[in-house]
């Protein structure tokens, strides 16, 4: 088969096939049964490209002004194609976060970050952090009520930095308050700064994959020895290597196609995430929640002890960076196989369980008052008049029900009080109501006249076998 004349002319002038051909056909070690685990990195790259394409399309319709962004997104979401593109960008972001996480775990468990691929790991770690930065700023660009409050919350977290906190916090907001400059700053970060760095890091990452060769699947009992590894790897490739294109690339292509198809399919079926109410800070009854990728962190900030908060907010992200940087420098040689590194398995399992569990906790947010609680109905109270009924009313009016459960109704921050009459004496109840606790206000000055007596009567009547 002869190439067309135009291609031969172009190729002679550019040397493209001479330059790129060997790169595409570079030998890779056979991956055997773990071959499908090697598709995660390229799938992450494809997810990024999907984000670039859909994001560029969205940018042609998005208005980067604090006053108009929300309406422009409503417009985009209202068109048949815009709906799918916005959906694909949102679910593509989820796909990219999942894939880069899975890729990082795969590389970590297989010990592929060890010699000579330490800088591969470092560039990948940079990409992981940049991806999380994209996820965070992207959620904010939705610029609905949650987007607005996300900007404030970001500023408050950055503001926990010692000494420079106030300046950094207002730098994040691009001014003393959230306003015209705030959204533009996050837009520039999301669309220019971070993607620019992503392009650089991807280029470095891919160059290093070619320069060092893709890691071969680890074999138990064959540790990495820097002095001999490169020679061994070269020989291994000469003996068993196969051309990347098409013998390995086909898996990458098929898997990436599936990823794109799933993202587009979900986008077409479900549409983009719902826009909340407008970014109007005077709509006070907002309940800002992060998108799923930061829900676990939202939960962590609730469950950690108070004194550790500054440390976690400021040092937590720093420690993640330190870990990612130190790992290949400290553990750059030795056994690669996960069975020889049980701590690696335990660490990954711990992180996955923590993120999974805290995400579920964050979705429930048991520490949040249930503002939508309704007054207890008469069949729960067990009385329509008298001190018990009055006490039930006090219990609701004073906000107790927002945080305490009674017969399945109300909030879940504090203890379930459905049968508190069995557990606590009058004095014990009194002490708790008066003194409060770390997570309960003191009601010592709030209850007037007969309210305390009614409340005690109501609480005492909360028994398994109600009289």
């Amino acid at each position, binding site marked *: 088969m002869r190439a067309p004349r135009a291609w031969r002319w172009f190729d002679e002038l550019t040397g493209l096939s001479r330059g790129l051909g060997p790169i595409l056909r570079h030998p890779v070690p056979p991956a055997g049964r773990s071959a499908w685990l090697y598709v995660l990195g390229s799938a992450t790259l494809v997810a990024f490209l999907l984000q670039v394409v859909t994001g560029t399309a969205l940018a042609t319709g998005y208005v980067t*002004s604090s006053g108009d962004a929300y309406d422009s997104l409503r417009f985009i979401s209202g068109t048949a194609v815009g709906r799918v593109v916005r959906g694909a960008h949102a679910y593509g972001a989820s796909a990219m976060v999942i894939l880069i996480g899975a890729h990082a775990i795969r590389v970590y468990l297989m010990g592929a970050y060890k010699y000579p691929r330490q800088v591969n790991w470092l560039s990948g770690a940079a990409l992981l952090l940049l991806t999380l930065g994209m996820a965070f700023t992207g959620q904010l660009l939705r610029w609905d009520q949650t987007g*607005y409050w996300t900007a404030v919350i970001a500023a408050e977290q950055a503001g926990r930095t010692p000494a420079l906190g106030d300046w950094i*916090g*207002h730098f994040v907001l691009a001014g*003393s*308050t959230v306003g*015209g400059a*705030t959204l533009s700053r996050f837009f520039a970060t999301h669309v220019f700064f971070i993607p620019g760095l992503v392009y650089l890091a991807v280029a470095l990452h891919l160059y290093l994959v070619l320069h060092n060769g893709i890691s071969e699947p680890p074999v138990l009992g064959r540790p990495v020895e820097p002095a001999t590894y490169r020679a061994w790897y070269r020989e291994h490739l000469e003996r068993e290597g196969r051309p990347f294109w098409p013998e390995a690339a086909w898996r990458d292509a098929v898997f990436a196609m599936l990823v794109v198809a799933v993202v587009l399919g979900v986008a077409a079926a479900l549409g983009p995430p719902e826009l909340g109410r407008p*970014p109007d800070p*005077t709509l006070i009854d907002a309940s800002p929640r992060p998108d799923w990728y930061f829900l676990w962190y939202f939960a962590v900030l609730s469950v950690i002890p108070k004194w550790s908060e500054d440390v976690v907010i400021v040092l937590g992200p720093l420690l993640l960076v330190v870990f990612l940087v130190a790992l290949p420098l400290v553990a750059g040689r030795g056994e690669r196989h996960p069975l020889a590194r049980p701590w690696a398995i335990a660490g990954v399992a711990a992180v996955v369980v923590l993120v999974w569990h805290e995400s579920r906790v964050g979705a429930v947010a048991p520490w949040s008052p249930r503002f939508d609680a309704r007054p207890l109905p008469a069949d729960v109270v067990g009385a329509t008049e008298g001190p018990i009924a009055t006490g039930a009313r006090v219990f609701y009016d004073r906000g107790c029900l927002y945080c305490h459960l009674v017969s399945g109704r109300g909030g879940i921050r504090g203890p379930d009080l459905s049968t508190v009459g069995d557990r606590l004496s009058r004095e014990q109840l009194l002490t708790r109501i008066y003194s409060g606790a770390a997570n309960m206000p003191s009601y010592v000055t709030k209850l007037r006249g007969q309210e305390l007596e009614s409340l005690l009567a109501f609480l005492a009547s909360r028994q398994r076998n109600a009289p």
Partner: protein
Amino acid sequence: MIAPAPSGPPEGGRRRFLSRLSILAGAVAAALVGIPSGRFLLGLRKVPQVWRRVGSLDGFAIGNTVEVTFLDPSPLPWSGVSARTAAWLRRIGDQRFLAFSVHCTHLGCPVRWLPDAELFMCPCHGGVFYEDGRVASGPPPRPLVQYPVRVRGDAVEILTSPVPITGPRPEASELGHYRGGANACERRARGGGSTS
């Protein structure tokens, strides 16, 4: 194919000079672009604090806490609704008011006033504040921030203020000092009222 570098006198004085000249030229060009761009990026817009009218005196009943809204000082024309700010305002006397920032001091979420419970509650991590802004329970490290309020004739006015950035958790001793600061703020508000 890139040809190998021609051999010549190794590191001759002329070549060393030209290498340094090239690097210097690049650095100068980078600085010429980078300095104004960086300064534009880092420069924060300074806006003056201004008094904003939030209502007329007889619109507020003594003892009631209500949400008031006002416009940021000199908002950019494209800010839209995001240039608005809300505060919780309570009339505590004939000419005296307290105004609380709606920002929870934990992470900045908007606190709600529950009139029957006489508490401010935060929907994010469950922070609760007493009616005077002190922390009642939950994670907030500091009392609610107060805005200065004054009464001018019939008009109730609030001094616009930056979004309060809580910053690192204060030491216990510092917290006492800070509470003093909040009271000072309150006194200032009262003082503002009496000068009208």
